[in-house]
């Protein structure tokens, strides 16, 4: 098939992908009236999912089985407060002559809603009812759910079109791409990052904020969404990490992460300067505090990070809703880094133990920024390797990376020391296309990528889904459902460490078979797992986005009262809960997941290039991992949009 024919086929498929859901959605049902006895209970509604046809009328008869709850329906102007014995107050608002908007509540027995907008709409509790209040949601699905059908149809189109494209159209390689060195484009940036105090001064504000967060976690409001640490760390930071730091700046966060900073200062016995030794000690031109061991070679992988991450997310819902749990985690990490600094040199915690560092490394491979040598030949000829062992101007790489052979972002902490220590001025900060570093080095990395995808799905079910029994199982310290918690954790661990990796390896075996058994299945599994990095990044953005859009008022609210002392610094402490265009969330999530699917399949195909050089064989090999990515994306599409 020629390129023109392929393009025409792809365009034809696009028309088909758009038209089919539209035609299917023309089917309409006769309007009906549904009487729904809506029971609200910590932390869910019964029924948790309400499915009606467009044009149907719903009559809600709400009641609370425990404390006062709320009901705010995205996309519809419907909000009410639910108390015990069916006492319900319906909110309404109006505009006065002077333009001001006033609100009032009517005591009602039932509430009528005409479902005149199709799609999926979340209803959520509006009164802080307990630890898991932010996750108390239910779903109204008004059929035909055209957005969802369109997203599924487009996901199929992305899958088929890309596979056709790979099969029939020769691909441009990303090798020898033009490189843009930001330090050359912006000379002020070059001067800035090479300043000795640069790292300290960008880190310092974060360290101060971090200690305030610990104080706030321990002595501030015990209510999660009234505590600045919970809001800023688990809502704002988590979203920013996935949506901005990693895709745009790789491990830029590691540069300003406050957790290992005290240990690093202690280990170096200086805040800004360089302690330079003329005569190297254990290959480095620096002497650190303590025993200065190197991390054992056998443990120089991600397995420990994977296990620690799994332990952390097993208690995820508790961690992100209890300030004291968040403070404990911070203090635990702080203590661990300080103790490790007495035994090991360099950033061993960040590199081999940090639960966040694992996926940060893998996901940074897709980042559009990289720190690399300008001319690798200069590095080869430079015998001192100052970037690795240090010089009078900069510390040797605290991540034990040699820039002269570094080809991935995984373990570059963006500390900028190599830029200072390099006497040849041969290191730059480059802009690269999204998803450029493609070398996968071991199963530890593949497992990390799969774990991240499974956890994104698991958290979407637990936190964003309407199923209160899963929330109760995960919320063991409050619900006391120990057995259910064990089942919850067992399912999570089995899925992340056994079932999904096993399926992926089986898919890779199939890839190998249909592409002619040219290489080891391991190679295909590792390289094709790269496809799940863009899928994972976009899945996590799609997962985190609702938290920000729905809870943005809490961000402004805790800013005015950071320690929960009743302050109102900016006049926003008592802002009413008002999600920001929540009705857009499913469509945005759909768009993000489709983007992730496109980049995943495309970059996955390119990542296979080093192991399968023949394009046609590679295109065939890409079918199973592409289908795997498509299934993962569709599981999330189903959760978010249907």
């Amino acid at each position, binding site marked *: 098939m020629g390129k023109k024919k392929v393009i025409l086929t792809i365009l034809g498929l696009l028309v088909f992908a758009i038209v089919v859901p539209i035609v299917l959605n023309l089917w309409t049902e006769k309007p009906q009236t549904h009487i729904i006895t809506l029971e609200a209970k910590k932390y869910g509604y019964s029924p948790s999912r309400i499915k009606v046809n467009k044009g149907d009328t719903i009559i809600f008869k709400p009641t609370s089985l425990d404390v006062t709850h709320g009901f705010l329906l995205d996309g519809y102007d419907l909000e009410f407060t639910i108390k015990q*014995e*069916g*006492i319900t107050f*319906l909110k*309404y608002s*109006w*505009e*006065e002559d002077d333009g001001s908007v*006033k609100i*009032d509540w*009517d*005591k009602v*027995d039932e509430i009528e809603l005409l479902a005149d907008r199709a799609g999926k709409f979340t209803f959520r509790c509006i009164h802080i009812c307990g630890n898991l209040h932010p996750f108390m949601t239910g779903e109204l699905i008004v059929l035909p759910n055209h957005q969802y059908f369109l997203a599924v149809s487009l996901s199929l189109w992305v899958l088929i079109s890309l596979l056709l494209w790979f099969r029939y159209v020769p691909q441009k390689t990303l090798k020898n791409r033009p490189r843009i060195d930001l330090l050359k484009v912006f000379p002020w940036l070059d001067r800035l990052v090479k300043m000795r105090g640069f790292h300290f001064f960008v880190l310092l504000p974060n360290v101060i904020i971090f200690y305030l967060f610990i104080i706030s976690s321990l002595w501030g409001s015990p209510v999660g969404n009234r505590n600045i640490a919970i809001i800023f760390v688990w809502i704002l930071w988590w979203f920013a990490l996935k949506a901005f730091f990693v895709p745009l700046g790789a491990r830029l966060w590691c540069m300003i992460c406050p957790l290992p900073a005290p240990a690093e200062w202690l280990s170096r016995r200086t805040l800004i300067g360089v302690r330079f030794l003329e005569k190297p000690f254990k290959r480095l031109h620096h002497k650190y505090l303590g025993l200065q061991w190197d991390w054992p070679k056998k443990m120089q992988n991600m397995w420990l990070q994977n296990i620690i991450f799994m332990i952390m997310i097993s208690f995820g819902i508790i961690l992100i809703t209890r300030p004291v749990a968040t403070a404990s985690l911070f203090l635990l990490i702080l203590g661990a880094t300080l103790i490790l600094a007495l035994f090991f040199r360099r950033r061993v915690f960040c590199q081999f133990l940090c639960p966040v560092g694992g996926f940060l490394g893998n996901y940074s491979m897709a980042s559009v920024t990289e720190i690399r040598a300008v001319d690798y030949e200069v590095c080869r000829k430079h015998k001192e390797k100052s970037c690795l062992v240090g010089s009078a101007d900069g510390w040797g790489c605290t991540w034990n990376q040699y820039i002269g052979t570094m080809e991935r972002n995984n373990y570059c902490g963006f500390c900028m020391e190599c830029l200072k220590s390099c006497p040849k001025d041969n290191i730059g900060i480059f802009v690269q296309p999204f998803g450029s570093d493609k070398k996968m080095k071991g199963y530890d990395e593949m497992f990390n990528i799969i774990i991240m995808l499974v956890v994104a799905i698991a958290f979407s079910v637990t936190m964003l889904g309407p199923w209160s029994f899963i929330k109760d199982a995960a919320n063991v310290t409050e619900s006391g459902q120990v057995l259910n918690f064990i089942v919850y954790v067992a399912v999570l661990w089995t899925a992340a460490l056994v079932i999904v990796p096993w399926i992926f390896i089986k898919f890779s075996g199939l890839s190998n078979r249909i592409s002619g058994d040219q290489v080891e299945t391991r190679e295909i599994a590792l390289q094709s797992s790269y496809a799940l990095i863009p899928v994972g990044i976009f899945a996590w953005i799609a997962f985190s986005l609702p938290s920000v859009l729905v809870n943005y008022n809490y961000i402004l609210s805790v800013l005015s009262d950071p320690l929960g002392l009743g302050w109102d610094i900016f006049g926003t402490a008592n802002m009413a809960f008002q999600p920001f265009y929540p009705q857009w969330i499913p469509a945005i999530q759909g768009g993000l997941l489709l983007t992730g699917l496109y980049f995943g399949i495309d970059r996955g195909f390119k990542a296979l290039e080093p192991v399968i050089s023949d394009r046609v064989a590679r295109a065939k090999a890409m079918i199973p991992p592409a289908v795997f990515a498509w299934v993962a994306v569709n599981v999330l599409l189903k959760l978010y949009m249907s």
Partner: protein
Amino acid sequence: MIKKSNLAFIAVVLIVFTLASLPAWAGTIIGSLTVKGLRSPKDVVVYISKGPVYKVDSPEARFAVDQKNLSFLPHVLVVPQGSTVHFPNNDKVGHNVFSLSRTQKFNLGNYGPGESKKIVFDKPGLVELRCDMHAEMSAYILVMKNPFFGITDKKGNFAIPDTGYLKGHGVTSVQELPAGKYTVRTWHEKLKSVKKTIVVPKSGEVVLKLKLKRGTPGSLYKR
């Protein structure tokens, strides 16, 4: 035998008396209102504030304010002067209905589920109901001087007299509104009362459009 002339006279007299015994030529008020500051224009009472005083004499009439789920139902009850209102307790707990309103003060005392008490409302005006045991419970009874009132539907439409409402409460004999000049007023607990003077024709309808805003209502009748 009755003479033909006498027969004609009797016929004329009968016709005159029959006509005289009919109510005066009467019209109907229909209308609609829009409100600002209310979820729906439903349940606004529109009534003749200055007009004839009629006591409703309908033995079948049945007005009630129920007590259920710690609420009075309905929240606003409109009754013609002289009506008997029943207060059944259909809740799971006991209640104590009382009124401190100038129109009619009373206290029904504490009574349990399944029991009912009643009161005759003789004096026109507003009666605010409360429960001694549940501070959040409140309701209003509007005792009207005559049956010439209407209660708005979901869309804000009303008719005076509201025969549907009255017949629904067992008031079968509803007089018609005689032709004449009247003042129409509105009452709703969250809306500022408005009044308008209208002329009801001898026959046909008079159409009334009202605009209401959020505020405190005035008293039902000037004392």
